C-alpha cells in the first residue's frame, strides 16, 4: 500500500541526526507551519472556485469564465484584490477585539488540522483523544464570531453573532453524539485507530442502519456548525447584511472567509475519517484480490476524494434549500436530531456490545 510514512520518517531521522534535538523540533514545527499555511492557501483558492462553479452549474449558468481557461484563475485575482485592499477599522469599534477576532478564528481552524490524517502515516499529531480534540477546539471559533459581532458596535453584527452562537451551541450536541456512535463501535478516540478499524470495510457499511442515521445527522449538524446555507442565519445577507462580518474589509474579511472554507474542509475530513474510512481504500471483507486492486490507488487520493465528495454534498445542500427560520432551526435540532441521535447511540451501544457489526 502506498504510504508517506517513509518520507516523513526519513526527514525526521535526518533532522535529529544532524541537529540539536530542540533545534530539530523547532525546524519540524516551522516545516509543519509552512505546510499548513500552504494547505490553507490551496483550500482557499480551490474551495471558493469549486463553490462558484458548483453553484453556477446547479443553476444552469457558466460561472466565472473570464480569467484564465474557463475562469479557473478567478480566485487568484480575487485573492490579489483582497490583499491590496485597505483593511479598515471603523471609528467606534472596540479596536483591540475587532482586530483580534479574525486572527482567533483562523488560529482555531489551524489548530483543528492537527489530528487529521491526510494519508497513511501523514498526520501532524496522533493525539489519543483525536475526535474529542476536534469537537473541543472547534467550539472556540464561536468565541471569535461573538467577539467580532460585539466589537463591531453594530446591531446587525450583534444579532448575527448571537444567532450563530445559539446555533453552534445547539448543533454541537448532535454532531458530538453522531461522532460518538463511531467511537462506540471502534472503542477508541484516536484517529489512527478509527481508520485501522475500517480495514475490512467502512463504518458506514459495517455499522448497519445506526451508522447511516449517524452519518446523515452528522452531515446536517456539520452544515449547521459551519454556518452554511440552509443554516446561514448568522450571515443572512438579505436580512442581516452579512451579520458578524458586516464591518470587515480587505484581508480581515478574507480571514473570516478563509476560516469558513477551512472549517468546511475540516468537518468533511472528520466525516470522511469516521464514516468513510479516511485514507483507507474501499475494502470488502475478505475479498483479497479486490482489496489488493483497491490498494493500488494512493491513500491521499482516497482521503481527498472522500473529503471533496462530502464538501460537494454540503455545497449541493447550499444551492438547493432555502434558509430556515430561527424557530425551525431550533425545532429541527431539539425535537428531531437530538432525540434521534440519543436513541441511535443506545442502539449502537447494544450492537457494539452484542458484536452484531461486521
Amino acid at each position, binding site marked *: 500500500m502506498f504510504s508517506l510514512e517513509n518520507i516523513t520518517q526519513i526527514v525526521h531521522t535526518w533532522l535529529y541526526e544532524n541537529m540539536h534535538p530542540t533545534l530539530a523540533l523547532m525546524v519540524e514545527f516551522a516545516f509543519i507551519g509552512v505546510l499548513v499555511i500552504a494547505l490553507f492557501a490551496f483550500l482557499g483558492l480551490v474551495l471558493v472556485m469549486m463553490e462558484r462553479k458548483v453553484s453556477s452549474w446547479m*443553476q444552469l*449558468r457558466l460561472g466565472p469564465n473570464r480569467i484564465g481557461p474557463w475562469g479557473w484563475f478567478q480566485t487568484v485575482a480575487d485573492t490579489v484584490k483582497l490583499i491590496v485592499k485597505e483593511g479598515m477599522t471603523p471609528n467606534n469599534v472596540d479596536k483591540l477585539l475587532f482586530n483580534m477576532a479574525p486572527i482567533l478564528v483562523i488560529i482555531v481552524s489551524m489548530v483543528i488540522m492537527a489530528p487529521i490524517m491526510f494519508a497513511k502515516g501523514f498526520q501532524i499529531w496522533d493525539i489519543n483523544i483525536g475526535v474529542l480534540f476536534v469537537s473541543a477546539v472547534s467550539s472556540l471559533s464561536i468565541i471569535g464570531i461573538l467577539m467580532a459581532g460585539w466589537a463591531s458596535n453594530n446591531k446587525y453584527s450583534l444579532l448575527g453573532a448571537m444567532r450563530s452562537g445559539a446555533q453552534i451551541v445547539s448543533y454541537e450536541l448532535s454532531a458530538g453524539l453522531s461522532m460518538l456512535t463511531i467511537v462506540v463501535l471502534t472503542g477508541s478516540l484516536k484517529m489512527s485507530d478509527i481508520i485501522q478499524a475500517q480495514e475490512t470495510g467502512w463504518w458506514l457499511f459495517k455499522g448497519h442502519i445506526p451508522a447511516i442515521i449517524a452519518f446523515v445527522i452528522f452531515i446536517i449538524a456539520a452544515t449547521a456548525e459551519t454556518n452554511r446555507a440552509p443554516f446561514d442565519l448568522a450571515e443572512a445577507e438579505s436580512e442581516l447584511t452579512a451579520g458578524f462580518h458586516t464591518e470587515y474589509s480587505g484581508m480581515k474579511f478574507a480571514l473570516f472567509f478563509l476560516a469558513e472554507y477551512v472549517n468546511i474542509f475540516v468537518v468533511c475530513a472528520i466525516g470522511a475519517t469516521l464514516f468513510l474510512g479516511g485514507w483507507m481504500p474501499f475494502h470488502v471483507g475478505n475479498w483479497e484480490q479486490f482489496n489488493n486492486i483497491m490498494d493500488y490507488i494512493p491513500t491521499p487520493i482516497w482521503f481527498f476524494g472522500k473529503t471533496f465528495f462530502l464538501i460537494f454534498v454540503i455545497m*449541493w445542500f447550499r444551492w*438547493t434549500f432555502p434558509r430556515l427560520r430561527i424557530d425551525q432551526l431550533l425545532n429541527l435540532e431539539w425535537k428531531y436530531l437530538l432525540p434521534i441521535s440519543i436513541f441511535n447511540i443506545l442502539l449502537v451501544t447494544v450492537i457494539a456490545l452484542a458484536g452484531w457489526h461486521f
Partner: protein
Amino acid sequence: MNLKQYFADIFNGVKSLATGMKVTGGYFLRHHKEKITEQYPDNRDTLVLAERFRGEVVMLHDENNEHACTGCTACELACPNGTIKVITKFDMTPEGKKKKAVDTFIYHLELCTMCNLCVEACPTGAISMANTFEHSVFDRSTLTKQLNKPGSKIRAGVE
C-alpha cells in the same frame, strides 16, 4: 404530537429534501448541454431580444426621410418626468395658411424611465420603442438626442 405523526413528518421531510436535491443534481449533471443565461458580449451578433423590450424612444422615418410627427406635443404632456421637449415651428401650406409642425424633437435618454406613455399618447404613431440597450457613453450630454432626422419632413396626408 403522536408518534405516528412524528415519523410521518420525518419521512415526508426527507422525501421533500430528496426531491429538491434531485432537481439541482439533475441540473448539475446536464449543465454543459443547457444554459439559461445569455453569454452577452460573446453572442452580440446572434442576440435576440423580445419585441416588447423597451430600450429607447425612436421616431420612425420612412425611406423618403419622412416622419409622422405633427408637433402636437401630446407626448411631451404625457411624459411624467420631462424627458421629451418638442420645439415647434409654423410651416406655410400651399394654400398660404400657417400650419404647426415639429422643428426639433428633443429626447433626454438619461431621464427616460421607458414607461411607454409617450408612445401610447401619440395620435399618429410617429414614435415607438426600440430594443437597443447599449446606452453607456463617456459623456452624459450625448444622451440628449434629437429624434427627427435633419432635413426630414412630415409625411403627406398625416394630420
